[in-house]
């Protein structure tokens, strides 16, 4: 939602980034203020996921130009774990499995690390168990998730729920959800998006990266951005997503090229 007294969380200017020497992001501009939900849409290879990973600090991507500030500070001065502690959260498109590490142990360490950073109380294993079980109800998760290895043998839908559970625990200021809808059936999509909606407040912001308008039926964006060729080529309201759904992505590029010639 757009609020009058919001403050700028993320400010991206002319961001360029490459992987293996190939430039993927070619000058992205984006401002995200507290309370807002942004959707970034685009075809495969348009650079959406790369943008998400660059913000989170994945070391396979090299930032070659531009600037990004988070709450006024240079994001690139921070290591990936420092960005996370500062409140930047990435829900992964393909959450990785970490066999042998109990999910409960992992979640508690992540939670306590964040709490320590914010100067709040850490929880011991018993307290945490109660706390996390409450949060799991939100996502209709079975408590036996806690005893399994992190994402180990989870179905696609279970992995995505586990991501949103982490978002619920860590209460980030900026949550970037990378294709959280992919691989979810309608029921799971409903549960996961309900969870996300409950976590949205006027103090945090969400960036949804997605292919499909479908997700936006459940989480209503304030802004929709279309990415192509490593840039945001069009920005609009939620009605833009509906246009894309009916007309595809091509017309945006054509329109943009025409505008460039003019």
């Amino acid at each position, binding site marked *: 939602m757009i609020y009058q007294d919001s403050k700028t969380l993320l400010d991206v200017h002319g961001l360029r980034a490459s992987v293996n020497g190939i430039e993927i992001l070619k000058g992205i501009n984006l401002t995200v203020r507290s309370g807002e939900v942004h959707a970034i849409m685009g075809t495969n290879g348009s650079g959406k996921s790369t943008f998400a990973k660059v913000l*989170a*600090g*994945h*070391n*396979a991507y090299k930032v070659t130009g531009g600037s990004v500030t988070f709450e006024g500070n240079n994001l690139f001065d921070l*290591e*990936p*774990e420092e960005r*996370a*502690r500062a409140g930047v*959260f*990435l829900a*992964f498109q393909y*959450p*990785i499995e*970490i*066999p*042998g*590490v*109990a999910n409960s*142990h*992992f979640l508690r*360490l*992540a939670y306590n*690390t*964040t709490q320590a*950073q914010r100067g709040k109380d850490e929880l011991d294993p018993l307290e945490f168990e109660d706390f996390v079980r409450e949060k799991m109800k939100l996502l209709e998760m079975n408590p036996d998730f806690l005893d399994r*290895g992190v994402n180990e043998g989870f179905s696609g839908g279970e992995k995505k729920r586990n991501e949103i559970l*982490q978002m619920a625990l*860590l209460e980030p200021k900026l949550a970037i959800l990378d294709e959280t809808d992919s691989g979810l059936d309608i029921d799971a999509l409903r549960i996961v998006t309900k969870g996300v909606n409950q976590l949205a407040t006027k103090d945090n912001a969400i960036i949804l990266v997605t292919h499909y308008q479908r997700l936006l039926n459940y989480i209503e964006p304030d802004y929709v951005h279309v990415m192509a060729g490593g840039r945001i080529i069009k920005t609009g309201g939620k009605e833009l997503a509906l246009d894309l759904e009916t007309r595809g992505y091509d017309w945006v590029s054509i329109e943009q090229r025409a505008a460039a010639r003019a």
Partner: protein
Amino acid sequence: MSAVLQNLVNQPYKHGFVTEIESDVAPRGLSEDTIRLISAKKNEPGWLLEFRLKAYQQWLKMEEPKWPNVKYPKIDFQAISYYSAPKPKQKLSSMDEVDPELLRTFEKLGVPMHERAALAGVAVDVIFDSVSVATTYKQKLAEVGITFCSISEAVQMHPDLVRQYLGTVVPVGDNYYAALNSAVFTDGTFCFIPKGVKCPMDLSTYFRINTEESGQFERTLIIAEDGASVSYLEGCTAPKFDTNQLHAAVVELIALDNADIKYSTVQNWYAGDENGLGGIYNFVTKRGLAKGINSRISWTQVETGSAITWKYPSCVLQGENSVGEFYSVAVTNNYQQADTGTKMIHIGKNTRSTIVSKGISAGHSNNSYRGLVRIAPTATGARNYSQCDSMLIGDKCSASTFPYIQVRNQGAKVEHEASTSKIGEDQLFYFAQRGIDSEEAVSMIINGFCKDVFQQLPMEFAVEATKLLGFKLEGSVG
């Protein structure tokens, strides 16, 4: 490998100091004369000298094993000094008489002695180079009839017991290094738990190789009589030298009816530097004979050090219903090589064995599991379960598994499971994205991986092992 990973594994070795102590060192080289010198220095009975000479004669005819999956230059056995003892040599009756320099060494190593030993409830037999310096708690153990002393002392005080059991599990000509050890062993630990006695505390020996180019050939013999039980801990460190040192130990365990021996090792010998220079060659023969019915022998090892590890703690399950266990974590980094595993030889009826092996390779290292499960025709109803998991950190290391399974009884059941996994950048990024730095992430992944083995270690050892692995792999991931 990224820089973070690199830094993680490359933590400097912390026990690499040399103690300045006058040593009584035998001239380098090996001959019958050397053996006679050792035997004479130790005032040994004739039968033991014969035992040594017989072993030496067999050794001369043997060849160094070539089958392990390790590479090293040929060892010059004439360049090694086979006897090195700290100089102040009169008999010590209390810890206060021990050379303070030695005590400082042990303090640096964190050996719990003196009051610390009392608090920890650990009796420590300390082997410094080749001679046992002091045995704590001997008195208290003697009250319940347990003999816990250096093997040299046992040869003097309990020659019949030593003679009855020495070389019965690992014969003098068993293998190249066991034969060498049998010829030149200088000291080690002897432990005898009489019938029906449960050892009231964990027994512990701390080994340390101090002299450059000296070999350490210790000999350990543990006997648990009917219904006896004991838990024995062994820790190892060595100072840093650019040259390689040879450690060729022999450990023999004997469990009679209903006896239980648990043997735990945390091995952190110097592993050589990051370019593979120096480090210990750890060529060790460890074997337990579960001789009696319902007896149990359990090996737990955490192997983090040594340039080369060549070691297969084994169980010969002779008694009916006897049980053999092997739980192992072997970590290699830089240019370390490990070829380690176990042998479970099922002879008696309804014998059972469990093998859980976790190999972790980082840097340019090479880590092999080699294990034999043999079910003899007599071993009706025998069962074995083996699980061998390898974990790779970075992309320049390797892991191999060589399981040998020989089943000669149709009623036996043998299971083998194996897996290989890798700590990847993406796993670490996942942790980082949740605010967890890479050191903590690696430690968490490794501990999760090794959990099944660490659970088997006595409490203090488990804590030490966890820390050791953390240091060991610091900088290896990133």
